[in-house]
Structures are given as structure tokens and as C-alpha cells.
């Protein structure tokens, strides 16, 4: 039986984000907490993930905007570390993620006697985004060719299929895994390996390389075992 004929081909898409200023600005940790409580979920999402598509050159451990600002503008290293370690992939919803950020900040506010201020021109500006998704007019029928395709995929397409997909899919999974699931148990091993790839601590280029490695190794091992 040829399973590849029973599943819809994987359709590669790409995306572009537009960043929009919300008009909300914070100058202290307390103001940051207050705005995080009220801001649209899209803004929380943008400050954890949207930066991947924007210019950045920061220390890799501060890979969400809140942590970076608390470190650089408020000079509060310990809170920055606590915010930086929050991994958004561990939360089922943006509301759960929002609650965790607020918890970290409130714990700090409770123990602090003085609230540090940023300079007036280093306020935190809350951004939200709109996304335009477009078809690359390119599809794939055979999962074994995925390893050849990924290196030629744009980083924004990787963002769409591996990061943005988690907001769209009921299981909070990436598009590749959702597609592979359509083949029944055949690619369970690959789905498990893809689940181990943590997109939060990588740039999009690094993520593309990791996905390529995982997929190529999987098919290489499967071929060696004569499993195909």
C-alpha cells in the first residue's frame, strides 16, 4: 500500500508580519505589569515570537522582549533571568503565558522596596502584529523529501509552519507533525523527534538547520534499518 497517495500534499506557505504600535508604554516594572494585564493577547505573542522576524542582536538568553527590557532598561538582572526562562511552548494558551509573566513580575514587586525606572527614552513600547499568509505554490507529497525541502524554505515560512502553527492547531503542534500524522503510525518516530525541537531558544536560521538535521537523521536511520 502506498500511504503517500492517501494524504493531501503538504502545501508550503509563507508569511509576513506587520508590526503595529499599541500606544502602550511602560517605564517601570509596575507599569509593565499593568500593561501586560490589559494588552491584547496578540501583543504578548509578538513580544515572545514576533521578534524572530525583526532585527535583533541580543544576548541569546534574553529571547523575549520583556526580559531584554528589564535587563537593559531597568538593570534588574534577576527578574530578567526569571522572565527569560519562561518558555511559551510550555503554555497551552496565551492567557496562561500572560498569567505566568504577571506572576514573575508581581513576585519581584512584592520583594522590592524601590521600583526601578527606565530612562524616558528607553520605555517599553508594546507592539502587536498582523500576519499575511501567502501560498508558495509549492507542495510535497512524499515525507521522505522533507529533508531536501527545508533548507530551501525561507525563514518566514519556517516561522509560519513551525511557530505560528502552534496557535492554529488544536493540539498546539507544528504543521509538519500535523501532516505526518495523516500517514497513521508510519512517521510517529519523526513526529516525536520534531516535538523535541524547541523553537524558543533558536533563531529562525538555526531552527531551519535543526529541522533539517532531525529530518535527515530520521530518514537516514530508517533507510539503514531497511524500514522504508
Amino acid at each position, binding site marked *: 500500500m502506498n500511504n503517500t497517495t492517501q494524504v493531501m500534499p503538504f502545501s508550503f506557505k509563507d508569511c509576513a508580519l506587520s508590526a503595529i504600535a499599541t500606544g502602550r508604554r511602560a517605564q517601570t516594572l509596575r507599569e509593565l505589569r499593568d500593561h501586560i494585564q490589559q494588552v491584547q493577547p496578540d501583543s504578548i505573542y509578538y513580544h515572545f515570537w514576533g521578534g524572530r522576524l525583526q*532585527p535583533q542582536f541580543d544576548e541569546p538568553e534574553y529571547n523575549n522582549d520583556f526580559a531584554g527590557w528589564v535587563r537593559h532598561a531597568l538593570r534588574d538582572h534577576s527578574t530578567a533571568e526569571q522572565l527569560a526562562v519562561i518558555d511559551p511552548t510550555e503554555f497551552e494558551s496565551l492567557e496562561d503565558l500572560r498569567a505566568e509573566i504577571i506572576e514573575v513580575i508581581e513576585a519581584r514587586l512584592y520583594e522590592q522596596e524601590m521600583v526601578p525606572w527606565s530612562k524616558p527614552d528607553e520605555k517599553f513600547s508594546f*507592539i502587536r502584529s*498582523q500576519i499575511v499568509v*501567502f501560498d508558495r505554490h509549492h507542495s510535497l507529497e512524499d515525507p521522505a523529501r522533507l529533508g531536501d525541502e527545508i533548507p530551501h524554505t525561507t525563514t518566514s515560512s519556517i516561522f509560519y509552519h513551525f511557530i505560528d502553527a502552534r496557535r492554529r492547531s488544536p493540539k498546539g503542534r507544528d504543521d509538519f507533525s500535523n501532516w505526518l500524522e495523516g500517514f497513521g503510525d508510519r512517521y510517529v518516530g519523526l513526529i516525536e523527534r520534531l516535538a523535541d525541537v524547541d523553537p524558543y531558544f533558536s533563531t529562525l536560521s538555526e531552527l531551519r538547520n535543526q529541522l533539517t538535521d532531525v529530518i535527515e537523521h530520521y530518514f537516514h536511520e530508517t533507510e539503514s534499518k531497511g524500514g522504508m
Partner: protein
Amino acid sequence: MESLHAYADIVGHEVIDQLRQLAAPLKNRKVVHVNSTRMGGGVAEILNKLIPLMNELGIETHWEVISGNTDFYQCTKSFHNGLQGNTVNIPSNLLRNFEETNRENATLLRPALQDADLVFIHDPQPAPLLEHISDRKGKWIWRCHIDVSHPYRPVWKYLRPFLAGYDASIWSLPDFAQTLPHPQYIIPPSIDPLSDKNIALPEEEISGIYAEFDIDPDRPLVTQISRYDRFKDPVGVVAAYQLSKRFIPGLQLVLAGGGASDDPEGEAVLDEVYAAANGDPDIKILLLPADAHRKINALQRVSDIVLQKSTREGFGLTVTEALWKGRPVIGGNTGGIRLQVINHHTGFLVSTPEGAALRIRYLLNHRDILEHMGKTAQEFVRDHFLLTRHLREYLTLMVILSKNNSDRIMLS
């Protein structure tokens, strides 16, 4: 005129494919850009490049320029200074002339503007056009290229009513956005890697600069390329050079600036720079014509370090240009320079002539670090600040506005 495929060698074919896919739903739409000058300044440079590429993508794109008398440009220069935070007093007769000039230009431009699907109005000079084209058909977007993070409030209060009616606005940095009743998009500007200002030059053309401007190729050179404008702090650059020269006696400085037709203050600032330089033969103060792009390109390439010691800056395209040529930049800690100059990666941010002098000495004494930073700088610009990224963001915005502005748009 470069076509899209010429950019593929620099940014990759995937990037060009992306542009074509994003532009597909905009085919045959009519787009008009309006600003106040065709020559001089970053806005005209960007429009000169973006508009032909938009047309190549099948979007019917036009460029209109408003015109005014000396009083009009005096007034809009005061707006510019006021929006950047300077206290300015603008006589009411200049404001009336500003409004009347826009009324006259609206009459002339009405046929081009009223039927356009999308109209981009650049900076404050043509902002009041909107209220004179009441029967407009399309979406109007105000594009602000200025650092408006700390505007002089009376100027902002005067201009705001002209801007509130737009369907959207675009700002170079989040810090610049103001309170307005429409979506405010963030799009940093860009440089064109194929323009005369940025394209790779033959070695003889680069080395010809030494003789032309009497620069010694065997001694270190720092350069600031900028209009002679107080916000660019050319006098501070001379001070930084003088502080550094005590430790690096062979140091040379080039200050090279052009004038824009809407910048009447330049001459006064130039006089201050001459006075500060005090006849030092190692300081070359150049006033270059607006079309001296290849000379500016070569000057950046023969420099060891490029300075952009602005105290206020919209974005700082001269910074982008220098980084693209693999030169570390010592830049003022303000505006869009912060987005480009990343300490220890692409250069250094400074707040004083002393800070600039310290970093000049550091880099000239650590040539390996200088070289490494230059390479990093070029890749950083390739990824984030080239024209193709800018065009992609405009296309994205245009798609969003033409598809009723929802948060997620799926193009078929």
C-alpha cells in the same frame, strides 16, 4: 534602473519570490506617493528606488511632489525641528502660507489623488492634502520619517488634526508613534544595495578619492556623511576628532554633506563647523552636490570608522550605508541608530564627543576587532535593512489595508 532579478544575487531568489507572491493581489491597483522634494534627503532616495520596483511588480505606482515658496520650506523646516524636540516659534503668517500652499497643491494633484487606491503622504509637508481631497476613493497613509519621540508639543498639537483623518500611519520605530485614532505601523527604512551610493566600486575609483580630497591613504580616517544640520552634531564630531588626535596624531577627519532643497539652515551650521575646525589641514569639510553618490560611497569605503554622532535621528540611513560597506559605526544613542548600531557587534553608541573619542581610539588600536565588526555589520544589513525588506513590509501593509485590516489574512 535596476529590476527585481538584479537583487536576487544579493538577497537570494526566495526573497524576490516572496515579493511577487505578496504583490499578486495588488496587481493593477493605483498607488501614489507624495513628498516635497525629488532630490536630496533619505525620503527622495527611497522613493526613487521603491516606485520602479512596485511598478515592476504590477502595481501602478506614481510619485507626485508638492512645491512651495521659501516661506513654505522655512515653515516645514521648523516643523521638522519642532517634531524632533526643538523649541520653535512659527509665525502665524508662515502657518497660513503652509496651509494655502497645500490647498494650491491639492488643486493641482486632485486628478492623481482622488481615484488612487492607496496614497502615501510622506512627512508633514504635504500632510494637509488629505482634507482637501474629500472625495477620495482609496486608503490614505501618512508616512513619518522623523524622530517624533519627544515632539515640541505646540508643533505636534498644530499638525495632529491634519493627521488624525488618515487611515493609517507608518513610523520608523515604536518609540516615535503618537496617540492617533488609526493603526500605527512600524516600518524601518532601508538602503538600496545597487544604487550608486552603495554598489561595489572599482578599486581605482575608490583610491581616486585620496587624491581628489587630499586624504593620506597611509593614515587613519574617520568620516561623517551628513547634512550640515545641528541634530547631526558635526561640531561634536570635530570635538571627538580633536580629542582623539591627541593620542593618534595621524588621524584624519572628513565631514561630507550635501544640501537638500528643503533645508535652509545648512549654511549657518557649516559656518560653525569651519570655526570649530580652526583651519586644521587634516579636517576636510566637503559640501557635495546631491548627486555625488559614488563619491560618498567611495569616502565610506576608504574610511576606517564612520561616525554618525546625531543627537536626534529619524532612522539614520547613512549609518546603514556605512554598515553595508563593512565599516563599524560610532553613532549617537538616539532614534534609529539604536536599531542598527549594536554595541560590540556593529559599532558603538555614544552620547558625548568624549565617548566617541574613546571608541575611535579603541577601534583604531584593535584592528582585528574593527575588521570583525565590519563583517558582522554587513551581514546584519543584508538580513534586515535592504530595500527588498522595506518593499516587503510596504506590500504587506498594502495587502492588509486592501483586505479590510483584519489581524490574519490568508491570500489564496
